């Protein structure tokens, strides 16, 4: 029987609380415990795990495509079902010279490639055309630790599907490498791309900071975890810079405890800003990540 890979989400609601740094440090702790780990950067709009680990994104391991509708005029009966189905109002049906309904026109800028039009077309007259919307990169950070990064094309609106495809790739990759753990580092926020990243996780670390902003956004992400039925664990970063009570109150509201506190550390900040976080020494890592 293949072993079950443990899936952990790393999220937080607010941006800049240290999600990525925590994800890298947790990976280091796990490999030091003898585990094989895949770190999957699901912040596909602004992925940073490769930067703080001092890596480059070279050749993509895979391209991600989305489908857009193309009309096959020979099959089209001009029935207008696709026009009615399109909730983005991205399909326009002009009239011909006699005033009868003409062929539908697809307006690409408005299309969110949901596929409603080609799913509902009674005549199978809408084909699809693939266009690249993102890329997936994979590489080794160090022994027993690999990084999978999803990257959305700039200007792409819906990035949830990029996250979903990156995760699928990472899971297959993890199976090939016989990994024990896969860590999904999410974007900031509480919507599409974050939901995609958290779905299917065994539990999630919610990294926050002791400020009222951190507290408010923590409340939102804990709410999301509850809705998704994913157990949440609170990590309080820069625990000494602000007021811990504010986080304590939110934790209490959700009947949780602060699982782990990490004090502000110049060393982490420096390693982060120089792209050397993955090179942090064993002793340092186990000191920062103790009791976890």
């Amino acid at each position, binding site marked *: 029987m293949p072993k079950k890979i443990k899936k952990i989400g790393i999220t937080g609601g607010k941006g800049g*609380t240290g999600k990525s740094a925590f994800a890298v440090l947790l990976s280091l702790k796990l490999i030091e415990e003898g585990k094989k780990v895949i770190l999957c950067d699901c912040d596909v*709009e*602004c992925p940073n795990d490769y930067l703080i680990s001092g890596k480059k994104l070279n050749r993509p391991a895979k391209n991600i495509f989305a489908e857009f509708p193309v009309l096959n005029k020979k099959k089209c009966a001009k029935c207008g079902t696709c026009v009615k189905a399109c909730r983005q109002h991205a399909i326009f049906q002009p009239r011909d010279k006699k005033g009868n309904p003409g062929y539908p026109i697809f307006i690409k800028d408005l299309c969110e490639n949901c596929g409603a039009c080609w799913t509902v077309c009674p005549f199978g007259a809408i084909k699809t055309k693939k266009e690249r919307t993102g890329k997936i990169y994979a590489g080794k950070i160090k022994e027993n630790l690999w990084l999978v990064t999803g990257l959305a094309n700039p200007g792409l609106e819906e990035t949830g599907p990029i996250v979903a495809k990156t995760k699928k790739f990472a899971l297959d990759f993890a199976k090939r490498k016989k990994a024990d753990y896969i860590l999904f580092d999410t974007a900031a926020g*509480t919507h599409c791309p974050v*939901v995609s990243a958290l779905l299917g996780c065994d539990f999630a670390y919610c990294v926050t900071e002791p400020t009222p902003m951190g507290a408010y956004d923590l409340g*939102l992400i804990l709410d999301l975890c509850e809705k998704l039925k994913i157990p949440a664990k609170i990590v309080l970063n820069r625990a000494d810079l*602000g007021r811990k009570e504010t986080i304590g109150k939110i934790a209490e509201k959700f009947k949780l405890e602060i699982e782990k506190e990490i004090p502000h550390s110049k060393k982490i900040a420096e390693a982060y800003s120089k792209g050397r976080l993955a090179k942090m020494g064993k002793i340092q890592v186990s000191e920062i990540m103790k009791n976890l």
Partner: protein
Amino acid sequence: MKTLIKIAIASGKGGVGKSMLTSSLLMLFAKDKRKVIAVDCDADAPNLAIWLGEPKNWDKVKKISVSEKPAINNNALKNMAGKAEECVKKCRFGALRAEKEKLKLNPFLCEGCGACEFFCPAGTIKMKPVKNGEIKTKKTKYGFPLISGQLYPGETGSGKIVTEVKREAEKFNGDIMLIDSAPGTGCPVIASLQDADFVLLIAEPTPSGFSDAKRVLEVIEHFKIPWSIVINKYDINFELSDKIKKWASQKGQGQINNKFLGEISYDKNIPKSISNLVPIMETDLKAKNEIKKIYSRLRQQYQRT
């Protein structure tokens, strides 16, 4: 001539100081008797009210709907063996499943495309708007209005709610609108930037801060919006701060304006003071004067303000 000027604040990376800068500039504009409108477009995690020191007591909270979800009527499937399964197979997002000939929806997988309304037997599925967000407004103690969006966690429509929040904000009478955008480069950010007259980028001098600012700049340049950049916590990495400044001045070549607008130093007292709900502009921290400088350069550089 258009009278209302829209300035959006963006960064790509989260937590680098968008709301801090927005709140401070709002207070400075208000002090100079300019009619400003504060708009928080980070509907995932709206924090502008906190940075203004008044997160509570909204004048108005309006529940809104920014997406539709299928409402299922399983009675319509009675005596239609196998039909539920057929519907399930047609959903591209795997959001439908069938249990004992009954359809069930997983709302977190549903994209709200509405195709199911068409391919399921008549009367089974009707797309219905869901109340999934709210727009909060208030008159702040500084005299200007604040309009803030909140999309409930896990709901879809983060771009649409931004458009709604901006529409609500436009109802107020003002000269300058400051739009605090979400991190990232996707839906909500595109909706925040779309009709802005000017973008203020803020970056911190870390490889990720710089990289993410460049990512969001691709969106800004796509919309051909004039912009300039502020470096926050510039003293945590002087080398990279200089690199960002050089990059900005190269970007500004051939243009009248220098793209670099100013810098703010790192100060542990900033999170501490906001933890007591004291905005930077009401402290004596170094950042206060640094932001004042940025404010006057913004007004010089972007003279319509």
